[in-house]
């Protein structure tokens, strides 16, 4: 039995279906297409020349979809499947087909197929899985060392006056690394959950970066890297001081660590129109290959695992930077040339009606508690 919509319900139905983001295809028992919406046209890349009556096979040659519809028609119960449809790019869909029952008929008159785009969800799920895999790796590495040294000490090395202090120092170093990681994770989840309350104030950048230079100095000297504050006087930014310190310290310390001896790190800044302030952190370091650039702001993403071990860090710094900047309504981007250096650009709000004269600097308070630094 076939069926058609009457002249009034058709336009209404088409308007409703047209507004949906999910692709919808309705077929009758003969596998002829009764109805489909614009989203389905996009999903299946249907050409506009395909007019007139269509069969399901005219829309797709995907076997899972055909099998699903057929099962619904034959067994009159819903069918669910995950699909990958490659058009211009590979996309993932959650496909659900349900029987179409009409009050007037005593049998299933057709089937409704709904195609929900889960490409983004699948991607997020992959990121989540990788995050936990990386996280357990990052925690396990120092923990294994700590347990090994503790065991050695317990087995008598504690009385070995030549090595016992050295072992304790190693344990201390690894415990500190784990603590940093746990703190960064706590920070990051607070920032992501919006629990990190920002209190933006107008900040004079030149003085602010001068204060950071003091904190950067030990690391920079150890690595023979020159740090230059090239922020022009009078440039201001509207930001939470503690967050801004975290943003800039993360970028500057990275720039120092991934530099070369006798290299240079510079910070410049300027207004960008009436609404934004642009801060640029530039280095003369190892640079980042283009293929890594889209992913470096992901949590625990490592460009070079061996190098990361050597320079330390938790692998969460750039993710924290990204979220703090986004929470300010700003954005962060990066350009890099391998072997030449990288340039991180942070755009943050410019203080409303920022005066030409720089106001007195509020020094960023050092964060309290065990997680400071």
């Amino acid at each position, binding site marked *: 039995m076939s069926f058609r919509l009457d002249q009034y319900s058709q336009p209404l139905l088409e308007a409703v279906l047209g507004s949906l983001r999910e692709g919808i295809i309705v077929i009758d028992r*003969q*596998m*002829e297409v009764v109805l489909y919406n614009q989203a389905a046209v996009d999903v299946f890349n249907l050409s506009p*020349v*395909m007019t*007139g*009556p269509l*069969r*399901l*096979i*005219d829309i*797709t*040659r*995907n*076997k899972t979809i*055909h099998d699903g519809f057929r099962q619904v028609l034959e067994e009159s119960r819903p069918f669910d499947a995950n699909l990958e449809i*490659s058009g211009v790019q590979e996309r993932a869909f959650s496909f659900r087909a349900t029987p179409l029952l009409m009050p007037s008929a005593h049998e299933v008159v057709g089937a409704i197929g709904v195609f929900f785009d889960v490409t983004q969800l699948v991607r997020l799920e992959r990121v989540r899985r990788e995050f936990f895999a990386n996280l357990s790796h990052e925690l396990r590495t120092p923990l294994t060392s700590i347990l090994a040294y503790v065991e050695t000490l317990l087995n008598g090395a504690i009385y070995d006056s030549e090595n016992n202090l050295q072992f304790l120092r190693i344990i201390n170093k690894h415990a500190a690394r784990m603590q940093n990681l746990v703190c960064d994770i706590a920070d990051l989840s607070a920032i992501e959950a919006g629990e990190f309350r920002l209190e933006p104030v107008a900040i004079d950048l030149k003085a602010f970066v001068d204060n950071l230079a003091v904190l950067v100095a030990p690391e920079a000297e150890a690595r023979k890297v020159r740090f230059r504050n090239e922020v022009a006087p009078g440039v201001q930014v509207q930001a939470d001081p503690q967050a801004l310190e975290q943003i800039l310290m993360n970028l500057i310390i990275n720039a120092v660590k991934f530099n070369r001896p006798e290299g240079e790190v510079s910070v410049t800044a300027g207004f960008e129109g009436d609404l934004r302030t642009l801060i640029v952190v530039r280095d003369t370091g190892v640079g980042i290959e283009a293929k890594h650039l889209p992913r470096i702001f992901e949590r625990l993403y490592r460009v070079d695992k061996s190098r990361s071990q050597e320079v330390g860090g938790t692998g969460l710094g750039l993710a924290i930077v990204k979220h703090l900047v986004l929470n300010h309504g700003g954005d962060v981007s990066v350009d890099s040339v391998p072997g030449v250096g990288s340039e991180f650009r942070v755009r943050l709000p410019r203080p409303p009606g920022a005066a030409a004269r720089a106001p007195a600097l509020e020094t960023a308070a050092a964060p309290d508690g065990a997680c400071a630094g």
Partner: protein
Amino acid sequence: MDAFALDARVQGLRDKVLLLGGQAEDSLSRAIGALVRRNSALAEQVIRDDDAIDLVESELDEDCASLLIKAAHLSPSDLRFVIGVLRTTPMIERIADHAVNIARHALRLNDEPELKPYIALPRMAALAQEMLSDALDALTQSDAAKARQTIRRDDEVDLLYRRIFAELTAFMTKDSAAVLRAAELLFVIKHLERIADYATNICEQVVYLAEGRAIKHTPDAWQRD
């Protein structure tokens, strides 16, 4: 040809042959994915799924035969379609076989270090995939113009085939450690070239179905539009 003018049983036949085409497309795309992304699990899947494709081919054969026995009840366009299916099905099945072969080469290549780079192979693979997809679209829409356009692209595939062949053999002369892997890739490009040929043959059938004339072995295959 309007699909709705066909006898219901012939319509079922049309669904089935196009679905078979879809399965061949899928096998090819997974086989190439197995090769390019070095995913051996995908290659094993392709090899496993081939039995199902062979089964559909035999079913289609029987369906056509049983329809032809009742030929008196079928219109000339129905009959022509059944003949078209009889000719097209083996081509699709062979395309799937070539995909399986590519998957087998991928399995062997994935056990070796990657031969860098795979040169223009991904482009040739994409072209063969597009030709297959366009041929099946042309068959779906009974679109002779699209079929003719697709036939013309076979020259591009042949050109790429000769270029990659030369590059791979040059690779072999230069680096004897690469000989085995380059040889595997020579087979892969041969399979791709054959797939493009079969896509061309399917297109010739589309023209036959749409216009009722055979263009095989004639310059008409690519001249008219």
